[in-house]
């Protein structure tokens, strides 16, 4: 018994000393915060998008890291809520990260941005399209296009491409993205001569859309624009089909492969706009697809968060390399000067706000229950 206890003590002592010795030999990693929804309503698509960060970090660390130090991603869960994002940002600040990637949703980004701005820690939001996000301050950057661009883009597509005259807009009232995009679409659509015949809101957690569907059934618009996420949009479309209401559905960049599961077969012929698509062929995109396949042994899914996150990590790494420091202020300065960066989603140059210049979007169409590049 006594011997046994001695053994345990010995082992404990060994473990107490050995790791610190090992650490002192290897270089200190550069901590990068990743704020994402690991739990809650947005967890499914967020976790998928986070793979992009993993891939990038692996790639960078495989070639020796940056400044001789490996990158380390520290994940902060925002519980899929603005409040969660707020506290996740605070935790990241406390943790002393050099920069933050995320959060994904606009509402989350809008909560995290003021915290990080005031802490002077650079934040790169991969997919937050609400224009207000980068307006928070000079430390806030984004990888995607903004909703004023996308709204106009989709309005033009609906009016001109699909020749729609009467449009219904179904809005997720709990998401800033949805509200903002809807606003821009409406503005663009009416400006283009179209008419908004119905505007309905649903809650963030909504699962039953029968009330809205009853109304929409009476109006029968030419097009039904749903600037929502895959889950709620998918459920809406499925319930619509179930009620025998077949409409021309149009979505924003928040749609991804997962909507196919939520909507069932009812999505056939629907369109949505996005930053990226796997079918886009470029040197970097091909590289990402190969990398993805290599790591996960499957083809990359249609989730724009993956390449945008992947690109964000690389841009951040690039900025660190260029600044030659892990000091957040220096990283911010380098990030602001990012220009002509070649990423999987294209060439990226940040404007004065931290938004990418040269916004461009693609239209995807559901054909045979599969997203195909339409335009």
């Amino acid at each position, binding site marked *: 018994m006594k011997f046994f206890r001695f053994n345990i003590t010995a082992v404990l002592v060994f473990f107490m000393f050995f790791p610190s010795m090992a650490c002192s030999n290897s270089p200190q990693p550069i901590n990068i915060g990743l704020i994402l929804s690991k739990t809650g309503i947005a967890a499914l698509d967020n976790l998928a998008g986070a793979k992009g960060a993993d891939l990038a970090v692996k790639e960078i660390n495989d070639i020796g890291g940056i400044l001789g130090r490996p990158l380390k991603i520290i994940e902060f869960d925002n519980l899929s809520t*603005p*409040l969660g994002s707020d*506290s996740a940002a605070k935790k990241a600040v406390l943790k002393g990260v050099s920069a933050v990637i995320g959060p994904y949703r606009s509402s989350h980004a809008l*909560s995290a941005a003021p915290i990080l701005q005031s802490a002077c820690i650079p934040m790169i939001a991969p997919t937050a399209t609400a224009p207000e996000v980068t307006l928070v301050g000079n430390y806030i950057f984004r990888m995607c296009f903004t909703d004023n661009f996308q709204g106009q883009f989709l309005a033009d597509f609906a009016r001109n491409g699909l020749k729609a005259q009467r449009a219904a807009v179904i809005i997720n*009232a*709990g998401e800033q993205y949805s509200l903002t995009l809807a606003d821009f679409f409406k503005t663009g659509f009416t400006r283009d001569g179209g008419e908004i015949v119905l505007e309905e809101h649903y*809650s*963030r*957690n909504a699962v039953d859309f029968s009330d809205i569907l009853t109304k929409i059934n009476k109006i029968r618009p030419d097009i039904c624009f749903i600037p929502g996420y895959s889950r709620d949009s998918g459920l809406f479309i499925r319930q619509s089909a179930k009620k025998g209401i077949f409409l021309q559905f149009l979505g924003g960049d928040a749609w991804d492969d997962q909507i196919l599961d939520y909507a069932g077969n009812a999505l056939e012929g629907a369109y949505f706009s996005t930053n990226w698509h796997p079918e886009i062929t470029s040197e970097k995109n091909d590289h990402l697809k190969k990398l993805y396949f290599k790591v996960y042994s499957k083809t990359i899914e249609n989730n724009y968060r993956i390449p945008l996150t992947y690109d964000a990590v690389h841009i951040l790494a690039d900025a660190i390399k260029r600044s030659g420091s892990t000091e957040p202020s220096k990283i911010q300065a380098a990030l602001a000067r990012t220009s002509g960066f070649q990423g999987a989603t294209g060439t990226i140059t940040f404007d004065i706000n931290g938004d990418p210049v040269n916004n461009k979007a693609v239209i995807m169409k559901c054909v045979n229950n599969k997203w195909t590049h339409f335009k």
Partner: protein
Amino acid sequence: MKTKSLRLKVNTAILVSCVIIAACSAAILYPVETKRHLTQLEQIKILLNAVFEQNKENIANEIFSGQEKALSMTLLSFLKVNGIIAAAAFDADGKLIETTDSSVLSERSASDLDASGNQSFFKQKTVNNLYVAEFGVPIRVAGEHFGYVKLLFDLSNMKREFFYSFVMFLLMLLTTLAAVSVFLNLFLTRMVTKPVAHLRDAIQNIQQGRLGEQIEVKAEDEIGQMAIAFNAMSQKLKEQHLKMTEAINDKEDYLQEINNVNMELAQLNSALEDRVTKRTMELIELNDQLKHNIEEIENAAMENKGLQERLLRSQKMEALGLLAGGVAHDLNNVLSGIVSYPDLLLMDIPSDSPLRKPILTIQSSGYKAAAIVQDLLTLARRGVTNLRVMNLNTIVMEYLNSPEHEKLMYHNRDIQVITSLHPQLLNIKGSEIHLKKTVMNLVSNAAEAQPEGGKIIISTENRYLDVVLKGYENVKEGDYVVLSIEDTGTGILPQDLSRIFEPFYSKKVMGRSGTGLGMAVVWGTVQDHQGYINVETAEGKGSTFELFLPVSREGLTLTDKLVQIEDYMGKGESILVVDDVPEQREIASGILSKLNYSVSVASSGEDAVSYLKTHSADLIILDMIMEPGIDGLETYRRIIQIHPGQRAVIASGFAENKRVKEIQNLGAGQYIRKPYTIEKIGLAVKKELEI
């Protein structure tokens, strides 16, 4: 009329029962209903809280990120819950953010919500004529306070339900009561009231004389049984009535017979009364007798107790007396010489001899000493030798005229002696010298009891006691001469009273009045006279001594005539003096020789007997006690065997006793007491020889 009355009572009973049941039901149901109401409210509160909790996080996020549209929708979603009619959200400062119905929920009064954001509330109130429950709860997420949510829950349904259930209960109760009342009424009418009415009618018929009335039996219950019993009774009544009529006819015969029997009975009764009266009388007599007996027994017991006390006292005196007597006997012998020799000497010396006066003085002293010895012997109660009939007045008067009294009065000049002597005082039989001494002692004591002066009242009277006088002693019934000596002195203390008669029990200073034997002599004297003493005393007021002496009916003893010495002179008769004491022999033989007797002496009984075997004597003077030889009695016994009828005079220092009596019974003559005097011995010898 009676039917109505019974019915009324039954109905009243039913009604009262129903009311009690209703009251009980209400009393049971009311708290249950109230509890149910409260439970419902509690459930509503729980429901509202649950609904809020479900949406709390959303609301918090919506307020946080300013999503008013989403907040409005969330609030609207509350309304989907059945009963919630309005919902509103307020920010942390209590400012309204969103409301679903601004008419009922738009502002937050200061008292409603807790400024600290910790307390929820739940209350009932009326808004726009709607009875609602208002639920207010702070929104707190992750420790941060974002604002408040208020929910209004419509309670009108519940209220209505409560009202309905009350009405329902009332209706059911009334219906039930009505049904029960009607049913019971019908039932009782059919089963009780009607049959009872039938029974009553039948009874009335019997009352009117229609015996044998029968009623129909409809049921087998108590009333049915009553009807059966009634029928039987009615039938029996009829039969009995018939029998009675028959019996009345036979009545006259019986009546005569009964009268006869009554007469006999009256006679017997009167005889019995007589016997009882007689018997009662007897019993009363017996009872009286029994009472008398009991009284006697009680008296005897009392007397016995008194006797015992007296015996104890007497024994004590006896013992003391015996002591004194013992001393006296020896003294007496010693004194013999002093008393006797002067007589002899005086015979021999001429009358003008100068020795004559001293010798007479010696003789006088001897007599006085003898008197003292007699005093002592009095205590021994053996001293009363010569009792004679006398009058107590004489004794008193003699004392009052005595030098002793004069001497006493001389010493106590402030004392006045008053005498009250009964002129026809009866005689007593007693010893003059003792009685005189007794009077002297009592008066002397009385004088000493009042040193400051006072009165001594000496009185005599005849007194006859027909009952026992319970005083100092118990004085037996009889004729008494009472001598009473009363003083006005200090009295006797209670603790001393029982002991005043004891020898030497004296409180006085020794010397003036003698030896402490005074009262003992009084006691001894009275005892010797078969009398009693009664003492009454009160402290500070004085004492009264009463002597009860039995009356004597004998005539007064004549004063001894003066005997001249010539009268005792013998004629040469032979006398044998038997005495163990040489001086006594000498005195006796001397006196007797002087008196012309031929004297022989014997020093013991045995000598006397042997002397008389060869000689004879006309008279023997025989001493009683002759230690260590045979005593006088035994000597005389032997002598009379030789000389039957031998004359003898008995001499002894002691008073007469049993043995003296015995010897006198054997034939011996007079008893003389030592010390001898020439008169005593001469007279006795002469008397004996002359018989």
